[in-house]
């Protein structure tokens, strides 16, 4: 049984540190699992594994391109999970994908496939609170932590319900928009973190629009840490390999540790 996301993230927070969760597109390059290991070795507290989907509506150009390349190379949800199974990464993983891959597989089967591959959590960005019921029941039964997103557009009354239903951590969306690196941290990022921190004891991580160590440090003044996606995936697309990904994660780790 894999370690839970929430245990790992609470441990980092408990030791006075900030949580760092990089996102890696599953199947992007033959050595993608080596990049996952490199990210873990470089100080990631957990890794998000993107399972490529044909229509990623929450993702910007970088992750779209990564998705397209992986799909063109024949990557499937099964091939990603097969690689993860027994990969001994050393930190917990969470799969991030879109609801149709889970729905088509069958929620119960998909959840048990994740658990059986040693995946601790799951993030489905096109499955909001209103629709979560059937999936959440399956995920809970399989022991998979369902991480929910909270967006800057949410009215106050909505956030406690999201925090209540979210497991592993609460994923604060840093801006009104899709994934991708921006030149500056949006004002909404720290506001989002503060709104969530005020109402939950669960770890609050901010992602979407957090693309540099400086931005990670800035938002972590309020949040418990960050999720970094497009900046990592861009490094993968540029052929950075395990070493390049590891170096990049190290930069974020060092910046967060030397606040």
């Amino acid at each position: 049984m894999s370690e839970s996301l929430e245990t790992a993230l609470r441990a980092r927070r408990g030791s006075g540190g900030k949580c760092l969760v990089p996102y890696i597109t599953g199947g992007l390059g033959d050595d993608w699992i080596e990049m996952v290991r490199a990210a873990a070795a470089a100080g990631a507290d957990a890794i998000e594994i993107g399972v490529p989907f044909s229509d990623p509506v929450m993702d910007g150009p970088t992750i779209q391109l990564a998705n397209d390349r992986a799909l063109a190379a024949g990557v499937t949800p099964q091939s990603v999970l097969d690689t993860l199974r027994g990969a001994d990464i050393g930190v917990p993983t969470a799969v991030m994908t879109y609801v149709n891959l889970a729905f088509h597989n069958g929620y119960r089967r998909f959840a048990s496939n994740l658990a059986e591959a040693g995946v601790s959590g799951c993030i489905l960005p096109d499955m909001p609170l209103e629709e979560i019921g059937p999936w959440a029941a399956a995920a809970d039964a399989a022991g998979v932590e369902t991480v929910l997103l909270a967006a800057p557009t949410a009215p106050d009354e909505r956030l406690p319900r999201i925090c209540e239903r979210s497991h592993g951590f609460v994923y604060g969306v840093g801006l009104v928009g899709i994934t991708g690196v921006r030149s500056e941290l949006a004002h909404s990022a720290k506001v989002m973190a503060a709104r969530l921190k005020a109402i939950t004891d669960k770890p609050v991580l901010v992602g979407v629009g957090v693309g540099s160590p400086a931005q990670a440090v800035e938002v972590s003044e309020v949040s418990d840490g960050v999720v970094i996606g497009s900046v990592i995936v861009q490094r993968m697309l540029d052929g950075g390999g395990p070493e390049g990904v590891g170096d990049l994660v190290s930069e974020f780790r060092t910046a967060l540790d030397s606040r």
Partner: protein
Amino acid sequence: MTMTDPGPEGRFGEFGGTFVPETLVPACRELDGAFRDAWADPGFRAELNRLLTDYAGRPSPVTECFNLSQELGVRVLLKREDLNHTGSHKINNVLGQALLAKRMGKTRLVAETGAGQHGVATATAAALFGMDCIVYMGEVDIVRQELNVFRMKLLGTEVRTARSGSRTLKDAVNEAMRYWVSVVDTTHYCLGSAMGPHPYPWMVREFHRVIGDEAREQCRKLLGGGVPDVVVACVGGGSNAIGIFSGFVDTDAELVGVEPAGGAAVTRAVPGIVHGSKSYLLQDEWGQVLEAESISAGLDYPGVGPEHSHLASIGRARYIPVTDAEVVEAFQLLTRTEGIIPALESAHAIAWVSRARDELAGKTVLVNLSGRGDKDVTQMMDILT
């Protein structure tokens, strides 16, 4: 049965829902509230009716096709949505949504388009209401429908190219949704079919209900109080079909939706979730959405509106695929016999009537002629010469 309010959850039986990124949930709920409020407001209805009459040219007539009827041995009536301003049924929905957007204080519209009919209609409404407008269109469709692209530009709309995936309607929807996620405060997403997250499938149906309501009354007069034996319409996302079906769903008329063979989501009947709702969806063994392939850009979509999936699953409507070759023939058939050039989308409905002429012998069939074919003439010229 009747077509009812799908409730705040937007359910049509097991289909529908609001499967959108969290960022968009408040906007969908706001839209649900605003539409409920507007639709119950006689002032809003009067203003929309005025626009539909004085601007769009409603009511559209029902034309009896004497020549075609004789040729097929089937009594064929056409509901002439091709005669609306901008050339298709799309204007009904767009005027409704633009009026609603204005009422909600939104200053900009974003839309997706396949054949360009919905894009042109949205650009038209934006010009009329003085709103900014952005339309996403797949790169492939931009080539197929260059006249409509130019039309939109003339109307003051910015046309953006969707270059991802299959570069057709599906990808234009993705891009429009991504854009909407980032500008949701100021911008209304003017979705062009009876699909997407709640409240769109319901709202778009209600805005197109006028097709069915008019046709019911027109048929009543024409048929001595009766209804047609069969009501038929083409189905991509399914907006023109749901509009005309809504006028006959509580009668004995058989309802038939005609899908392109390369995009026959309902015929294949595998449920999936994409673009905001659960419905039948073309997908591979893993749940990756497949690319539809159709001669008609407006039907080149792998999904279908959730209420069609519901109507199919309960057996109230049936859905039948026709091939591109049958469509090309039907396009010429209607043009030659009646002097009416149909949109390639609408020609799908004619194609089924032509194919099923033996089964339909002696019956009265009402076809929703959803759009006119001017936009397709260049493409047909390439195919036929």
